[in-house]
């Protein structure tokens, strides 16, 4: 009896082992291996949210416009366009040779259906208000009007017209975003919500979704019908979902990845020494900041205190020594790299740190604090070694310059976000903002009073009116002046403490060709190539 059990166990082990050996997929043609730091929540153009989802979506779809390898706006599914009516009407002429992956032509109606679906409440799209300036968009999202009233029109199969409430100079940038990609209505009818499944999903981009194993990888293969397929060099792309940065680095070191999404902060120096040419650092459209809770004391009524705290931080030391990865210290809110804009800098940007410290101490005293009455305040950040290191450094700076000890509290990300929203317990909190498009508006509009993204609760009517005036201003130079003035107001109020501007860090194997650093950190696989020995 026990012999039979033993035999059964051995047989089970054998079966498991043999099945584990089962065919590894054979690579046909060139396959690019990229790392993704988290699982995309969806590859449906209207249900994606994170930059990771967008990274994959950009390979399996194409909007009216696109970017090239160096981050310049180029024609995508539209080959040309006209802007009329003081910037409120856009007419796009679609490429006659554009095709879906099943050979069907891409026509204007596909964009109309898609944009309507984006704003339909039932879709529950995260980016439903991305094109909020389209006529009736806001009303449709709120359920007050029907999706059919959206300001889009298919004039004919190859001509698409968009109608806006206000001029939007960066509209062309918006039309590169996956939420504006077309959908194939026939596919939706046939498959319903399953139209995004590998095998069903049609693509008008350079690649088609082939396989998605949640937690493991996403595989896309060449779309033979893509209008620019002749220029696509790589046949297959595998996105490996690697949440731990160290795990991703190990895979890169072992030669199993061509491109990483990050470099772990702890290993940065080692990586810089070992792979100096593979390491790609580029300015990125993001700002790392500490926000104040402006709805409660002590920061609500004390601009001097806010300014003091901001001035007492040595940003150069922070970025140069403590972080040390090439980030730029932030003396403004809007990062460099946005078009048609000259960021204002804070008034103390040109002082030395010693001079700043002196002024900071004076302001601190003016606010009513001193050695007998030190400021008692909490700084919250989401748990991570990296954020902790920065918080500890700033705690020390405030202690040395101003003489108070800020209490550091680390919380899980979701908890911190909930606290920031509720504005009950937060006083100073760490957060960041990444821009969606290279225009100052994406950084400045989020601090208008009453919007959900206004984390500090900043409410300055002058600021609001400047932003509104900029939004409705068709003349680009006048618009720019309004935006720059708005930033001046924001910085003078010290509603937030910008610390540094993001830098994207990736490792790119020497075998990869066609790589272009750009401020958006967009790297379309169709621009890349692999040298023969992979």
């Amino acid at each position, binding site marked *: 009896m026990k012999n039979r059990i033993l035999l059964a*166990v051995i047989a*089970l*082990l054998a079966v*498991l*082992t043999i*099945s*584990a*050996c*089962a065919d*590894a*997929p054979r*690579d046909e043609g060139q396959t690019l291996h990229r790392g993704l730091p988290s*699982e995309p*929540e*969806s*590859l*449906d153009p209207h*249900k994606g949210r994170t930059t990771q989802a967008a990274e994959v979506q950009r390979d399996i779809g194409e909007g009216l416009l696109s970017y090239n390898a160096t981050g310049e706006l180029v024609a995508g599914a539209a080959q040309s366009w006209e802007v009329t009516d003081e910037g409120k009407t856009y007419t796009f002429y679609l490429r006659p040779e554009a095709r879906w992956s099943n050979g069907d032509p891409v026509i204007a109606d596909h964009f109309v259906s898609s944009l309507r679906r984006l704003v339909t*409440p039932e879709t*529950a*799209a*995260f980016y*439903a*208000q991305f094109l909020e300036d389209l006529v009736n968009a*806001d009303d449709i*999202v*709120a*359920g007050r009007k029907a999706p059919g009233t959206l300001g889009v029109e298919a004039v004919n199969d190859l001509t698409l017209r968009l109608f806006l409430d206000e001029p939007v100079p960066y509209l062309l940038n918006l039309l590169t975003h996956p939420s504006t990609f077309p959908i194939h209505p026939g596919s939706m009818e046939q498959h319903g919500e399953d139209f995004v*499944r590998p095998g069903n999903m049609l693509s008008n981009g350079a690649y088609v979704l082939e396989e*998605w*194993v*949640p*937690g493991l*990888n996403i595989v896309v293969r060449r779309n033979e019908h893509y209008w620019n397929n002749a220029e696509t060099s790589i046949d297959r792309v*595998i996105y*490996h*979902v*690697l*949440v*731990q940065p*160290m*795990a991703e680095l*190990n*895979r890169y*070191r*072992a030669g*199993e990845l061509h491109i990483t999404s990050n470099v772990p902060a702890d290993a940065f120096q080692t990586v810089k020494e070992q792979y100096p040419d593979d390491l790609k650092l580029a300015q990125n459209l993001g700002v790392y900041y500490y926000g104040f809770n402006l709805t409660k004391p002590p920061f609500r009524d004390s601009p001097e205190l806010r300014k003091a705290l901001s001035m007492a931080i040595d940003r150069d030391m922070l970025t140069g020594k403590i972080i040390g990865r090439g980030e730029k210290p932030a003396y403004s809110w809007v990062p460099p790299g946005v078009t048609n804009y000259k960021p204002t800098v804070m008034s103390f940007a040109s002082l030395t740190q010693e001079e700043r410290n002196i002024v900071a101490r004076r302001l601190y005293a003016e606010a009513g604090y001193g050695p007998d009455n030190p400021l008692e305040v909490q700084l919250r950040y989401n748990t991570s070694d990296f954020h902790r290191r920065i918080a500890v450094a700033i705690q020390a700076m405030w202690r040395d310059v101003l003489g108070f000890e800020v209490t550091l509290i680390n919380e*899980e*990300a*979701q*908890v911190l*976000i*909930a*606290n920031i*929203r509720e504005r009950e317990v937060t006083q100073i909190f760490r957060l*960041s*903002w*990444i821009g969606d498009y290279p225009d100052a508006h994406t950084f400045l509009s989020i601090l208008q009073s009453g*919007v*959900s993204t206004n984390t500090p609760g900043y409410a300055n009517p002058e600021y609001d009116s400047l932003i509104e005036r900029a939004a409705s201003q068709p003349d680009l130079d006048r618009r720019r002046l309004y935006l720059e003035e708005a930033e001046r107001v924001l910085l003078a109020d010290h509603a937030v403490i910008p610390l540094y501007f993001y830098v994207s860090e990736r490792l790119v194997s020497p075998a990869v060709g066609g790589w272009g650093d750009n401020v958006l950190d967009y790297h379309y696989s169709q621009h890349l190539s692999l040298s023969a020995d992979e």
Partner: protein
Amino acid sequence: MLRYTLLRLLGAIPTLLLVIVLAFLMVHAAPGGPFDAERALPPDIEANIARAYHLDEPLPKQFLRYLSGLLQGDLGPSYRFRDHTVNDLIGGAFPLSMKLGAMAMALALVLGAGAGTVAALRQDTLLDRVVMGFSMTGISIPVFVVAPILVLFLAVQLHWLPAGWSSTTGTSRFVLPVVTLALPQIAYIARLTRASMIDVLGRDFIRTARAQGLGTMTVVRLHALKPAMLPVLSYMGPAIAAILTGSVVVEEIFGIPGLGQFFVRGALNRDYTLVLGIVVFYASLIVLLNLVVDILYGVIDPRVRRR
């Protein structure tokens, strides 16, 4: 036996119900929701999403909705992975976790029982001490220390084994995760086997067998092994639970798309349905496997059956 099984299964239902209620309450008690993120959503969009996922309904109603879906075998849509249902995700991830767990368990049994037996036969010799010493380290050093060390040496430095899980390699990618997962269990089983084997080897019927002229290995194989394994079999229940929980860490470290990884992700993402689904699944699995162990115990030890 049949009656016993049925009664046990029936008794499991209130347990599972309690687990579901507790898990549901805990998951909703955690601050933050499934759709919160650094980039806050405009109120209209939040309202649309809440409506689409029934998060705007009162909690008891949401619970009943979930329960009725559960009774039909539908664990609901994943809140975080909008293109997949929880059934999809569990169905896709579980075979892999099961494979890893089963291989680790098998390895642990074979190596553990073997090491324990050898140690028992060579009691108090150097071999005994060495074997027990190794097993002590296996218990003491946590998984999340062992795994990265093994990866660093065997994968990154020596390139003998792959550093992680990727769909382009074969059997070799199982080796490190299975070994890492099995190590603490090898240790426990070795110690259990050794103690139990020593006890059994001292019994009268063994002396009888020896007196009849049977060699040591035959004695062990035919007479000692089965009774010596009984304590190990009782340990199987907790061992399975330990492998399930240990798999979470191992899967994280090696990037294996198993249930453990989804469980952690789900909790961090406040993906209510995914977390609940995995909790229900794990709970049912543990109840079932414990039942199997109890039945096996009866099969192997006739004395239990007669009760």
